[in-house]
């Protein structure tokens, strides 16, 4: 096989995997806290929007990311208040938030930029890459020159593994999901733990959205997250919320995204290429369930 082809595929995979990884790491936190987070789609979308807006207005990708993260955290906070304190159904609120953000971003885009379905401008600053040219082909293409958020996301994966399994917060987080009454009995407010998990999740989904709109495409378009929040959810369900497994599964999903991009230039109908990531996430989930069923015997 062509080495250039493999290199492109690898780099695209990493690029596409980064937002999925960031979002599913965030969702893993709420998963451990006992909330199946279906609002990640909306969190990524709101961040993608505000990242673009602020990057455009300030000319700085950094401020763009900050704005995206803050917006995502605020919405996540709202989600958490509903789910943890008002005891509303997390699916119902999650989807209400997703739909709200889908129409809100569209509404704001029309009001602020008179754009139709997308907003782009050369003034939108892109996220920096770790630009180093060593001259070594492998190093330059396989280890260096990715978005700084890519490196950050991998570091976060290991950091979360430490937090969840080694620290006091992690212990409380896991108990929160497995047996919240035990936390209450120990005098710890379940809602507070879930609130923190949600805020952190919001932050990570915010980074994911920023990576999407300030690096992967550098524009905002209607519903541009395209179900990635749910691909991330599939990754969490498959990995059981274990950060290192999440890392692996996200890379796999990134690969399918990359293949999709690659295949669109080939002879087959582009619709099938576009379908691929969604079909594959269902297939991987299916394989996972077939495997666990074999392990535990038929129920």
């Amino acid at each position: 096989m062509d080495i250039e082809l493999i290199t492109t595929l690898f780099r695209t995979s990493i690029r596409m995997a980064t937002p999925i990884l960031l979002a599913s790491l965030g969702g893993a936190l709420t998963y451990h806290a006992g909330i199946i987070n279906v609002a990640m789609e909306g969190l990524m979308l709101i961040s993608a929007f505000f990242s673009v807006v602020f990057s455009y207005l300030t000319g700085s990708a950094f401020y763009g990311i900050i704005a995206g993260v803050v917006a995502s955290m605020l919405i996540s906070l709202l989600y958490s208040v509903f789910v943890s304190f008002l005891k509303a159904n997390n699916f119902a609120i999650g989807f209400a938030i997703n739909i709200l953000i889908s129409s809100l971003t569209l509404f704001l885009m029309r009001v602020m930029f008179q754009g139709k379905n997308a907003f782009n401008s050369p003034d939108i600053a892109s996220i920096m890459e770790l630009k180093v040219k060593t001259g070594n082909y492998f190093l330059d293409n396989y280890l260096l020159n990715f978005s700084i958020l890519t490196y950050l996301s991998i570091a976060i994966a290991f950091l979360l593994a430490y937090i969840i399994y080694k620290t006091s917060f992690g212990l409380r987080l896991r108990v929160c999901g497995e047996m919240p009454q035990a936390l209450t009995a120990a005098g710890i407010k379940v809602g507070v733990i879930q609130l923190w998990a949600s805020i952190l999740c919001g932050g990570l989904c915010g980074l994911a959205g920023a990576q999407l709109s300030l690096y992967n495409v550098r524009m905002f378009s209607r519903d541009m997250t395209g179900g990635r929040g749910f691909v991330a959810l599939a990754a969490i369900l498959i990995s059981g919320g274990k950060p290192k497994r999440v890392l692996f599964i996200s890379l796999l999903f990134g690969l399918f995204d990359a293949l999709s991009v690659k295949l669109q230039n080939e002879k087959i109908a582009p619709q099938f290429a576009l379908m691929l990531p969604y079909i594959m996430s269902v297939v991987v989930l299916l394989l996972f369930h077939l495997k666990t069923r074999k392990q535990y015997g038929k129920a």
Partner: protein
Amino acid sequence: MIGTRTLSFRKLLLSLLLVLCILSIWALIIWFGGESPFKGFRYIIEGSLGNHYQFLSTLNKMVPLILAAAAVAVPAWTGMWNIGGEGQLLLGAFGAALVGFSIDFGVGLVNIVVALIVSAAFGMAWAAWPAFFKIKLRMDEVVTTLMGNYIAAQLIAYLINNPFRDPRSPLAQTPYIKSSFVIPYLFEGSQFSATFFVAIGMVLVLFIFRKRFITGYEFDITGSNPVFAGLSGIRVKKTKLLSMLIGGALAGLAGGLLVLGMTQRVMQSFSPGYGFTGLLICLLAFNDPLLIVGIAFLFSALQTGSVNLQLFTSVPAEISGVLQAVMVLFVAAFKTFIVGRREG
């Protein structure tokens, strides 16, 4: 019984407060869109209810919304989440179009009934695989039905671009259905048709099914406590599967009615998100069929009204989606205060 009276008085007060809250946040959003709230509300009300034509248009827009909401509600009765209404609706629309441009039985009513049955069957088929995976492998149906939407969208895009593309049209779309399949408009100058009564009829059927039929009772018990249902001899998996299939069929029917009653073909961006609006409606209606009609009317009025708003002001019509979703969140928040949280 002073206790209960003060309690219901409190409920009334809270409900009024809720309406006030929603109206003021709506006003704020309209103001942000660049129009004075009072004018904005006037344009919305005039645009949806102002005259005979606009009122019919509002009623007509309710058809897919009612059915898409019912497609979420029926599975919800047994505890299943059908987020795949959008995809099921697309498949249903394609099924109706496929019958409509390729077959002819000679009798208009037979044609229409067959096309609608096929649309329901297509929608049902698209709900079948997530339901099957759920009951066989406990695969999360939220993820699978949602992924199904994206897959269906691409699948339909492929079908109308390639094998079933209308050769005479410059656009990617199926051929028009034969005239004997068209459900005719009932009034001059309006797209309002008998499809509205089909949707209302379906809701009534569902209402009676849930309240009066043994199977409807089993749906409710299964949703309320599946373990108990199983121990009572209800076949829980079958019941869940059935509810999901009915849900898919309802969404498919929505697509079929849209094709036969309005668009007469399936084209690119056929659905502006009926499935998700249906989900919102269902959430607001707490899965109740009769409430769905009421909420669907409100949502439909917001949509037609917002188009009018855009016509006369700088406020984009997309505002309707924001207004709808905000309402769902407010109602969800207030619900805990009105109904009361469980203690203990």
